[in-house]
């Protein structure tokens, strides 16, 4: 039954997103994750104008699908209707990654302790999302699990707290770590396998306009059975790895080179091999406590 279309404006860190949809279950899920991001004043300048809708036709009844529209255009194939929320999240990430070249975009999790930022760059599977999630459950302020957004001229890390997609067994790992972790619905079949999102905490959301200064650069690597090992990383190697890890390093050219070089210069650089999430988090929290201001908020 088609309901009236809802028209919401959400804060997503430096971006404002208009989301329109009449899909009640999608709107429910969106509310669960982003109630604190909805703007009630208005009108707002829109960075991304997104609509989540059901295509017309017979499929509506047989195998319902969902369409992601940006500026009324459809860059993707329709997705199964039950994946509306992951489709929205993925689509918004695509919009940001392909257009926000105003910023240096690190492919990295990022968490702040006060105003000091910890950057966790990593390839898919390195565990950066899981680590970012766990750190925020212990009072770290979530900047992003995926985008280290940096203003190249000031090197500020921007916050963009969003649902953290936990892939496959990561959601169990997080529940084991914190049984009260606020997780959304499970999506058994997405392009990335089984996904369940962690809701960003209220404090991170409330402070999403607050920037952070890069202080630690930690390259995580999940290795089953390994003992946690935080080892200093040579700065030239850190530069190479961070540069290769940007979404738009080549695109920004010299601007990116200078920004990455300065980030590496001003941060303590480590590689971090880990297997046990609780110990890994303690170790990274210790690092933050020892060399930076205390984490905001109290551990839960």
């Amino acid at each position, binding site marked *: 039954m088609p309901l009236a279309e809802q028209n919401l404006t959400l804060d997503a860190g*430096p*971006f*404002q997103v*208009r989301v329109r949809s009449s899909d009640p279950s999608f709107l429910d899920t969106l509310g669960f994750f982003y109630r604190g991001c909805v703007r009630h004043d208005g*009108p*707002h*300048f*829109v*960075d991304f*104008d997104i609509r989540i809708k059901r295509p017309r036709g017979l499929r509506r009844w047989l195998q319902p699908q969902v369409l992601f*529209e940006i*500026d*009324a*255009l*459809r*860059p*993707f*194939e329709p997705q199964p209707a039950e994946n509306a929320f*992951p489709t929205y*999240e*993925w689509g918004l*990430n*695509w919009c940001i*990654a392909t*257009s*926000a*070249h*105003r*910023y240096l975009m690190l*492919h990295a999790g990022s968490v702040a302790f006060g105003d000091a930022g910890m950057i966790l760059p990593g390839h898919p599977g390195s565990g950066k999302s899981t680590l970012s999630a766990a750190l925020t459950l212990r009072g770290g302020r979530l900047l992003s699990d*995926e*985008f280290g957004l940096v203003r190249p001229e000031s090197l500020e890390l921007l916050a963009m707290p969003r649902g953290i*997609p936990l892939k496959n067994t990561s959601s169990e790992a997080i529940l084991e770590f914190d049984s009260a972790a606020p997780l959304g619905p499970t999506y058994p079949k997405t*392009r*990335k396998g089984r996904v369940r999102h962690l809701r960003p905490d209220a404090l991170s959301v409330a402070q999403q306009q607050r920037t952070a200064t890069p202080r630690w650069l930690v390259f995580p690597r999940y290795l089953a059975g390994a003992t946690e090992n935080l080892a200093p990383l040579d700065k030239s190697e850190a530069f190479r790895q961070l540069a290769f890890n940007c*979404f738009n390093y*080549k*695109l*920004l*050219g010299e*601007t990116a080179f200078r920004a990455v070089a300065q980030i590496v210069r001003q941060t303590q650089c480590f590689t971090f091999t880990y297997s046990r999430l609780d110990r890994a988090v303690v170790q990274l929290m210790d690092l933050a406590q020892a060399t930076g201001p205390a984490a905001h908020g109290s551990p839960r």
Partner: protein
Amino acid sequence: MNLLIQFLRRPAIVHKWGVEDWNRFMPLARNARLLGRCLYLLEQHDLLGVVPSRLVDQLRGALNQTRYVQVQALRELRHVVRVLDREDIPPLVLKGVAYLVSGLPPSRWRNLSDIDLLVPKDDIVRAEQALGRDGWQPSGDFDAYDQHYYRDWMHEVPPLVHRQREIEVDLHHNLAPPVSRIQINAAKLWADSLLVSGPYGMVVRTLAPADMLLHNAIHLFMNDELRGGLRDVVDFRDLFEHFLAQDAAFEQLLLGRARALGCGRPLYYAVSTARDLLGLAPSAAFLAEVEVFAPAAPQARLMRWLIEQVMAPARLGLRRTAAANQLLFVRSHWVRMPPGMLFRHLVHKMVKAKKPALSAADLPG
């Protein structure tokens, strides 16, 4: 008249804009690939202070991307020129990359997705093979029919891309398909072409100014169902004004060239569209002479309506725009091929399965 058009004609209008106006303007400018052009216009008129800062961020982001693609295009051109020089085949660059090499006004903001080159017809297969030996390959799967379509009917060979790079290389031997309504004697283009010293010490040829404008018009109104859209009309207007400022006799030159090459009709469409939409203001004498190339009045009116639906929709995603695009698609085939050939082509295309618009790439999320 949509907000983008209003802005391109009179940038100071942004003083009056509220939030909702900006929200309608940005998608139009983005979709027309004119964000960079808009940023320049705002800077030129000292209006940047009026623009909300988050939108300035978007405009700058788009220009950063354009700068990058421009560098990629010039590098690709350098690779291609190296191969063609070795084969003694003269490369003549077209469209976006020609503006870039020659430092013409659009090069300050214009994005591009491929590099277009003209080579003599007798050399085109040799050029294709030489590039093939150096790592370029067809950019897609072209079956036997596609090969036949390109090689026997079109003015280009199937697009190439180097296996280690991303920018497409289109080799042409003419500006319009040999089977189309417009027949251009390529020898005349070569005779008037200019030698240009580009970046990286490259020496390439470009079309003469008048031919460059005629190519823009042919490409937009005869070859490609207006796919270049408003961006190409902006190019036309900017280049027209630039060349006229350099040479007071440019209008007459352009008319003479349109007659000599037999492409008065596309010139008529380009001039009238640039006038209707962007306020191009040539001399009355020039307009009167261009009017001679117009089609019969009902056809001219229909085209004008179609062009407006496609290039100046009030917003994106209107059903009217889609319908106009359908008609233009049919028309573009009609002017490109004789009826019998068109029939066979369409039947073949109908039988072939439709490809997905975009496969989900491995991006974040």
